[in-house]
Structures are given as C-alpha cells and as structure tokens.
C-alpha cells in the first residue's frame, strides 16, 4: 500500500493496470487524455524487461475501438480511451461490438465534459450507454474512479460485454491523495479462437439482441447490491438521488447545511439498480435528482414510479427544479436544496461590487505559427470572396479577434468537407479548410479523398506543427514517434496528398510571410482541390534563438501590429507606442512584416 497524490485520470490508469490490462488504445481529447499517458508512465515491466502493456495512440477513436476489440477477442483485458465526442466517431464499431461481445474484459473510458469546458457538445455517455445497451459506471471522485475501473473489468469479463466507464472533467482532473495497493492481476490470454460468433450476421444479431436484454435485466438486480450504488436513510420523506460528481457536491452541501435526508447514490446509471431505488421510493414522497447533462437518473426514477404506481414526485431537470444545461456546483446545489427543502441559506459575506475585470479569453500563444498561417491567408484573400472552414485543435482559436479567420467549426475533420459543401452552392467563393496534422490523419484524409474524387474546388491548408498541441503534445502519425516513445515511420503528409491525387501541393514556412502569401495566391486559382502545407513547429517544441524589440524612435504609434496580429507578446508601452514583452515573445518575426516603418527588429545582443 502506498499513498500517492494522483489525478483522477491517473487513478483510472492505475486501476486498469491493477486489473491486468494488456492493451490500451485511444485518441487524445480533453478531459480523457491523461488516462492513456499514465498507462505509459506506469507501464509495468515483464520479466524480460519489456513493457507489460501495449499502448497506442490510434489515428482516431474508431480505429482505437477496433484495435481494442481485436485484442479483447484474443482474450486480453483491454482499455480504450476517448472523450465524449470521440465516442461518436467510434460508435459504428461500438454498436456492433455490443452484440458480438468480447472474451477479455474490455473497458471503454469515455470522459464527459459538463459545462462544456473544452468540448463541442454536452452529450451524455450514460445516454449512449442506454442506446448501445452497454453497462456504464459513473465515478463520483478520483478514489471511486480507481475502484470502478477494476470493477468494470470484472463485470465486463463476467458478462463478456464491453463496459463503459464515464468520469466527468472534475473527476478526471481532480487530484486526491489515496492509498494504492501494489500488485496486478496476472493471466495469460487464451488467444483468438475461431468461432462463428465473431462474425456479425443478421441471424446471430437477433439472438444477441435477446441475450443482451435478458442480461441487462439480470444486471439490474446484481448492481442493486453493488458498492458503488448506495442508499443512505435519513430523516423526512423528502429525498435526494445523485450520481457522478454531483453526488460529491451534494454530500458537501448537506454537510455545510448540517442536514441529513435520505440519499440515493447511483454509480451505475445503466443498467439501473431498480431494486435499490425502489427502497428509496417506498420511503419518500418526493425525490430531488441532482446530476449533470441528461436527466438519466431522473427518467429511470420516473419510469420506476410509473411502473410501480408509486405516489412519489420526481423533481429535477424536467420540471425545471435543476438546470438543464451546464455544470453543477456546491453553490448551485445549495440554492436548489434551499428551495426544495424550504430553508434559508446562511448569509454569505456581502462585499462591494467589483471593478470591471479584464476579460481573458484563450488566445494563440505568442509566436504560434498558426497566427502567421491565418494572417497569410487573410492577407492573400483581401478583397476576394473567401470562406475559412476551421477544425478542432489549437487553431480553432483563429476565430478570435483580430484574426477572425474561422468561419465554421463543426467536428474533427469537417473543415475539409464543409468547405466542399459551401463551394457547391457558392462556386465563386474560394473555400479554404484549415486542418492540423493530427486532425488530418484522424478524419481529414478520407474527406480530402472525397474532394479529389468529386472534383471539389477548394484549398486545403494543412497546419503542420508536428504535434497534437491542444491536448498536451501527443505524438501522431506525422511525428515519427509512438505513444510508447518508440521511433515510428513518419507518414509524410505531402506523400499522402500526392497519393490521393492532389497535384498542386506547396510546402511553405508560414513565418516566411511573403512566400506564404504567394503560395496562397497561386493555390486559390487552381482548378479542383489544391493543398498548402504550412510547416512550422509548435513553440512548445523548441527554444527561441534570437530576440526582437521595438525601436521606439522608429515606432510611429500606429498600432497596426497590435490591431492585426493580437500576439500576446506585443503590448502598449504606456503611451501610444508599442513594446515587446520579452518574457512572452517567442521570436517568430511575424510582426516585423506588419510594421510599416520597420521598427520591429532583431535585438543584436543575446
């Protein structure tokens, strides 16, 4: 037993390692990314000194799910990791896998993001679990995430079904000091045994569907006795049901108020622990449901109340007692509880209204090559009708003023295809897509095949910064490295573009602004699909070698550099002029092109 200070995602990784996971695949996505990274970090060694667990960053979530499925067919315990929207990409294999089943335990870690804090949607993986008919665990804390990871493997292997584990951001990224037992479940996978059951066929699917429904009914009873689902009796006939981190918030709120009312905790929202919930429903007149995202627990309780003809009011999102969107908090739950229980909250401190606070939206880093890429396209297309279809990554921040270069952003890889669609309706518009190197290999590539095949007129900008920056610099097919740190074949983007039949391809350093603008001009006038690879590394990958400064005698205070670039390195000098904040400037040199008087120059000494 060792006390460690671990992040929720690290706890999940340690739980999987303890459960004997042998294959881990995934695609980065906040807030799930650190799970796979921590498996790499804590990878135990076999007797011969090699890594006990095979870990890969797959090119996308569908790929990860399928590699994982194969490994589980062969009897290994497997974990697949992604964020909630990643599950949409992986839903095709997942839906069928639910029917086919697995041999080795398979836990699919899907992190949800109430808020959303860094996601496109507030979708709820618990709802996805019901849709795919797969069991789902919903931990309330990093400590519970560790335990549930191990329990999920057991359940998966017992029923030979994939199992979902869905923590939310606050659980994933919360840290806790916890005791982690040593040791790891050891076994030798049986290997792949040929059997017709691995081939999905309509006749088999009918039988599988029947089996799944029966199995889930069995699990309902079994899960009512599971330690992650609890019913704590209390005084009165007004009760609470809560799940996930909302349970932790509820506990805190009740402690602050010093009240003790009946509390049902749901750790497995599907299959729902009906028997346990009925115990509560038999002892309550009203149940307030506290959960984030979809009203999953709430609907399950409404369903039970209807089925059993119970005289219990279920309150929550559907009747407006709890907010239908966004994150919960202790404060939010305190005020819901106050009106539910008809009590007054202790008065907080009253303070003077605060002065106007600076707004700090996230921006591209100083020296980020994406700024130069966007600026080059913007300059080249001045006065022309053009549309800029963005994608998911740091470069989504190209939407911010003053660049204002992201007109659309839908989902991974969609910049390329949305550009094609707009072009079908507006043939006189130059349609650009902006795709990062990781996104290009994720889903960008088939979308570009579509452009070539269907002869779409568009310019695909590939922003190659040699990393997956947004999620914390994971390797990808373009980086020549694998998740386990091994050297891999670097899959050349230019070669891939040529291979699918794009003939006009330019590779330019966007920080060479004049060449970059010229490349955009020439690509915009090509027929069909053309591509420009803007290649310049993310600033996290190197240290600057020179230093820039503003010659204040030459600066005329026009502030064109500030207005056009929005680089954090450029700041007002107190008067009308501009100076460079040397602690932030990353010496990209872009501002030197913008200044009309050439006031921004390399500082000689350094």
């Amino acid at each position: 037993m060792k006390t460690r200070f671990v992040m929720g995602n690290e706890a999940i990784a340690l739980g999987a390692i303890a459960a004997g996971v042998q294959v881990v695949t995934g695609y980065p996505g906040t807030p799930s990314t650190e799970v796979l990274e921590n498996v790499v970090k804590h990878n135990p060694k076999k007797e011969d000194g090699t890594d006990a667990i095979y870990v890969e960053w797959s090119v996308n979530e569908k790929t990860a799910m399928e590699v994982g499925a194969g490994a589980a067919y062969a009897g290994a315990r497997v974990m697949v990791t992604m964020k909630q929207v990643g599950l949409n990409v992986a839903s095709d294999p997942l839906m069928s896998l639910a029917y086919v089943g697995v041999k080795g335990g398979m836990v699919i870690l899907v992190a949800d993001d109430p808020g959303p804090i860094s996601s496109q949607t507030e979708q709820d993986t618990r709802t996805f679990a019901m849709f795919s008919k797969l069991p789902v665990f919903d931990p309330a804390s990093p400590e519970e995430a560790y335990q549930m990871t191990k329990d999920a493997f057991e359940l998966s292997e017992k029923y030979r079904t994939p199992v979902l584990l869905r923590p939310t951001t606050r659980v994933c990224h919360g840290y806790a000091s916890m005791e982690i037992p040593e040791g790891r479940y050891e076994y030798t996978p049986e290997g792949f045994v040929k059997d017709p059951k691995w081939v999905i066929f309509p006749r088999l699917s009918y039988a599988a569907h029947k089996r799944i429904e029966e199995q889930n009914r069995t699990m309902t009873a079994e899960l009512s006795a599971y330690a992650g689902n609890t019913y704590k009796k209390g005084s009165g006939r007004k009760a609470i049901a809560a799940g996930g981190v909302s349970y932790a918030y509820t506990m805190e709120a009740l402690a602050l108020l010093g009240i003790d009312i009946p509390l049902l905790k749901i750790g497995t929202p599907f299959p729902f622990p009906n028997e346990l919930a009925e115990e509560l429903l038999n002892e309550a007149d009203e149940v307030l449901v506290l959960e984030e995202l979809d009203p999953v627990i709430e609907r399950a309780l409404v369903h039970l109340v209807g089925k059993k003809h119970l005289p219990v009011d279920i309150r929550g999102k559907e009747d407006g007692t709890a907010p239908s969107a966004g994150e919960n908090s202790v404060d939010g739950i305190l005020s819901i509880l106050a009106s539910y229980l008809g009590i007054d909250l202790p008065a907080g401190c009253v303070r003077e209204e605060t002065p106007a606070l600076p707004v700090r939206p996230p921006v591209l880093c100083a020296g980020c090559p994406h700024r130069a890429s966007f600026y080059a396209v913007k300059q080249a297309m001045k006065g022309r009708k053009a549309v800029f279809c963005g994608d998911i990554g740091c470069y989504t921040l190209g939407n911010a003023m003053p660049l204002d270069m992201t007109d659309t952003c839908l989902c991974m890889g969609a910049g390329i295809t949305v550009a094609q669609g707009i072009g079908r309706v507006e043939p006189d518009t130059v349609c650009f897509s902006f795709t990062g190197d990781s996104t290009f290999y994720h889903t960008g590539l088939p979308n570009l095949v579509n452009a070539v095949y269907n002869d779409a007129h568009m310019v695909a900008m590939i922003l190659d910064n040699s990393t997956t920056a947004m999620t914390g610099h994971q390797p990808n097919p373009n980086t020549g490295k694998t998740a386990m740190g091994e050297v891999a074949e670097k899959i050349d983007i230019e070669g891939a573009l040529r291979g699918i039949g794009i003939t006009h391809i330019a590779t330019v350093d966007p920080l060479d602004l004049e060449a970059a603008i010229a490349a955009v001009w020439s690509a915009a006038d090509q027929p069909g699909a053309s591509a420009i690879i803007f290649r310049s590394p993310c600033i996290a990958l190197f240290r600057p070698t020179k230093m820039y400064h503003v010659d204040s005698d030459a600066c005329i205070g026009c502030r064109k550099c500030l207005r056009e670039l929005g680089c954090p390195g450029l700041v007002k000098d107190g008067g009308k002029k501009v100076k460079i904040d040397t602690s932030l400037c990353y010496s990209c040199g872009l501002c030197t092109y913008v200044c009309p008087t050439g006031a921004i120059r390399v500082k000689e000494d350094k």
Partner: protein
Amino acid sequence: MKNILLCGVGGQGTVLASKILARSAMERGELVHTAETIGMAQRGGSVVSHVRIGEGCYSPLISRGQADVVLAFEAAEAVRNLPYLKEGGTVIVSTTAVKPVTDALSKTDYDGQVMLDYLARQNVRLIVVDGDALVEKCGSAKVLNIALLGAAARADVIGMTVEDIRHIIETTLAPKFQAMNLKALELGAASV
C-alpha cells in the same frame, strides 16, 4: 479542513505551487484534494487551483465563501476569486498586473492599482507582495509563485512553514532551478 485557492494567469506557475502545498500536506500525513484549470483555458486565460487539506472534503472544488486563503499571483485575479474567500479570510496578492491580450485592442487600460485599492477596502486580511520588484531581484518572472508561497508561509496561513517549502524545493526541483527558487522563497518570506 483548510481550503486554499490559488489563482493567476496561464503560465504563472499556479499548478506547481498547488503541487508544493499538496506535497507538504501529504508529508504531514493529511488527506489532500486539488483541482485545477486544464486545457484550452490555460492559454492566456485565468487559472485557478483549489487545494483542500484535511478530512470532510467531498467536492474537488472549494465553494463560495469557504476559502481560508486566496493566494493570487495577479491583482485582478484576486478580485475575480474573492467570492470564494471566507468572511475575514486572508488574501495574499502580488502587485503584478498582467494585461489581457484584448487590452491591446481596447481603448481602455487595465490598471492593477484599481484592483489593489478595491481589495484594501474589503473586510479581509490583506497581504500585498511587491511581486514586480521581487522577480526583478530574482531575475525571472517564473519564481513569483514560490515568492508568494514564502510570503504565505511566513504569514502562517497555509499550514506550512518556510522551512517546509525549502525542503520540498531542495528535494523535488531540478538542481539548476534551486538557487533561484530558494532566493525567491527568502525574499517572499521577508516581504511579510
């Protein structure tokens, strides 16, 4: 139970400071929970770390009016997070004012002094640390976090002593960063 909220702007080292607090508490055998800003919001945005020490913490985040201390590496961030502070709690704030990137585009200037004046008018125990002068003396803005921890330790509000922090710096930081951080620690402590 002790609740400490650290806040600042992306890149100011809030996370490292919260790690040091957590480590020290663990060495004393206490339970610790922390939570911090991760992801897109880190890029130039406001960042916070919630550090909760002791038994009875369920939520990973401190709720409003529950923080014993707000430790702010930036003046406006102290004001932004003041609602978390308990009645009569302590604010330790650096005079540092980080202009938002949007400031370059706007006509109005953000002035850190306005924030400090506001804090001074509230019913809090206020400790102002001249962060700009401190980092000037240390030769790097990167050590502001350690300087503020030093001030907080000397003010005896975070449950750890200057010695505790020194010990953690000496045992966990890479040797080449130690001298600078130890200097920042001393200067920070001396400023209270």
